[in-house]
């Protein structure tokens, strides 16, 4: 297994476990404000200390991991669930009107500065984690459509696909049974990349107040709340940021490793 994959898997697995664990248990209640315990330094009862409201930082980071991962994961799901069938359909009908419409629609979404539209969407429908998911997910659709179409196009010219055609299989069946399994590698690698971009996007949205709403902790909002405290307690701004960096870095390394492992020919797909 490539070293990059293994190195990246460590922080990723750690945060996944923390997120899962937070469903059942956190060291302290993340919603309980305890002014008597405000701004405690790390150590003792609070492993990473407390924030200006007396909330346990470690517990908040754990629940924050859950928020980030959930938002990014569902957004990737939306992108794959809609983008891949669109891309497969475009490839199967290459050069047709359908292909043209799908690809131009993709170009259109690409033309929008994604964060601007994400801000617009969350502003229109009200800030919430669900709307953040939608906003991030929409921009994943053209990415997966493009990757799926690109991978599928070259497969359609191969002999075994022609053989399937001759055997009487329709485009839908060929796409599902022969094309999809063969572009799965590409899609998995892209999914890791979009996952890490989703974590960053969620952090940015919740930082400007358009992601998960209080009292649900999220890494981005922890940073926003820490900003005014940066002089007195820089730790509050450092830890959530480090968590984001570690998670994104881990996912990117895993993506690189996976790409090398699954198909060395794909080294140049990522730009």
């Amino acid at each position, binding site marked *: 297994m490539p070293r990059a994959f293994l190195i990246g898997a460590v922080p990723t697995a750690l945060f996944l476990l923390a997120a899962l664990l937070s469903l059942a248990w956190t060291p302290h209640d993340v919603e309980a404000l305890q002014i008597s315990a405000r701004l405690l330094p790390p150590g003792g009862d609070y492993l990473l200390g407390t924030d200006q409201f007396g909330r346990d930082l470690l517990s908040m980071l754990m629940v924050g991991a859950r928020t980030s991962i959930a938002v990014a994961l569902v957004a990737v799901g939306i992108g794959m669930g809609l983008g891949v069938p669109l891309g497969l359909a475009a490839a199967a009908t290459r050069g047709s009107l359908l292909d043209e419409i799908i690809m*131009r629609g993709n*170009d*259109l979404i690409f*033309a*929008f*500065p*994604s*964060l*601007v*539209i994400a*801000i*617009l*969407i969350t*502003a*229109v*429908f009200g800030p919430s984690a669900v709307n953040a998911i939608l906003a991030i997910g929409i921009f994943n659709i053209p990415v997966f459509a493009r990757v799926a179409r690109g991978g599928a196009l070259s497969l359609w010219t191969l002999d075994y696909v022609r053989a399937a055609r001759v055997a009487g299989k329709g485009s839908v069946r060929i796409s599902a049974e022969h094309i999809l399994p063969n572009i799965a590698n590409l899609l998995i690698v892209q999914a890791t990349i979009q996952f*890490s971009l989703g974590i*960053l996007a969620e*952090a*940015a949205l919740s*930082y*400007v107040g358009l992601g998960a709403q209080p009292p649900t902790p999220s890494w981005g909002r922890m*940073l926003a709340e*820490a*900003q005014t405290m*940066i*002089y007195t307690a*820089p730790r509050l*701004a450092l830890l959530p*940021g480090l968590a*984001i*960096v570690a998670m*994104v*870095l881990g996912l*990117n*390394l895993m993506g690189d490793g996976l790409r090398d492992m699954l198909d060395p020919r794909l080294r*140049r797909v990522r*730009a």
Partner: protein
Amino acid sequence: MLRYLLGRLLSLSLSLAAASLVIFLVIEVIPGDPASYMLGLNATEETVAALRADLGLDGTRTERYFDWVGGMLTGDFGTSYTYRVPVAELVADRLWVSLPLAAIALLLSTALAFPLGTLAAATRGRVTDYGIMGATQLGIAVPNFWFAMLLVLVFAITLQWFSAGGFPGWSDPLAALKALTLPAVALALPQASILARVMRSALLDTLGQDYIRTARAKGLSRRQAVLRHALRNALIPALTIIGLQFSFLLAGAIIIENVFFLPGLGRLIFQGITQRDLIVVESVTMLLVFAVILVTFLVDIAYAAVDPRLRTR
């Protein structure tokens, strides 16, 4: 070339039309009527209706769409509900912050990425290469607003070299540039990391080409071959990314302007959203999208001019 140009122009206009329709429809969905919002709870229905007419909110949906698009084509972006001044004026003011910010960030990121990417490619597989690639991997993973906070912590609070935010205006150009320095650095870092990686892989691709071997056989040193032949050809993918980055820089600027309290377009959109100043949100978003589509268009044209093979795509 002319045919290619016309084709691209047609697709540019179609994209713009589609984008304007999407933005208009998204804004239309926003619940709440700006007129009654502005006048408060005690307003009578007549005053609300009068203000609606005044703001041009009384037509049908289709009428309002064409009013808006037609206005923009003639440089009339509507009148802000809250500021009571033309949106074009607001935008012009803010552009003097956002454009220089994006431009400085783009310059910084290019100035950093080109030498770093070239150096990494030239030292492929050695410690320098690994060091640069590791640093860019980290640069991509750092959220720019967090990096901005770190910069404030180090350079504004601890060292006190810069102010932590705000913008003094261009009457004192040096002070203005100083205020834009930290935000531009924060914006440039992730972009520089991506660009350096693209530059490296593009260079490695061209270095494997036959014409480089020919150049070396002709007696050019490795350095000469890289600088004279490989670099030029590697610029094409690098230029695409620079074009794409413009869109990221604009979006990133929205967040960064909020970190540093800079009165740019991003802050304008945010204020527009919170104050329900929809015409501001609508027109500024359209302008940003227009800028992105235009840059993509220009990059396409620039390629076709440089590389005739691309015209027949």
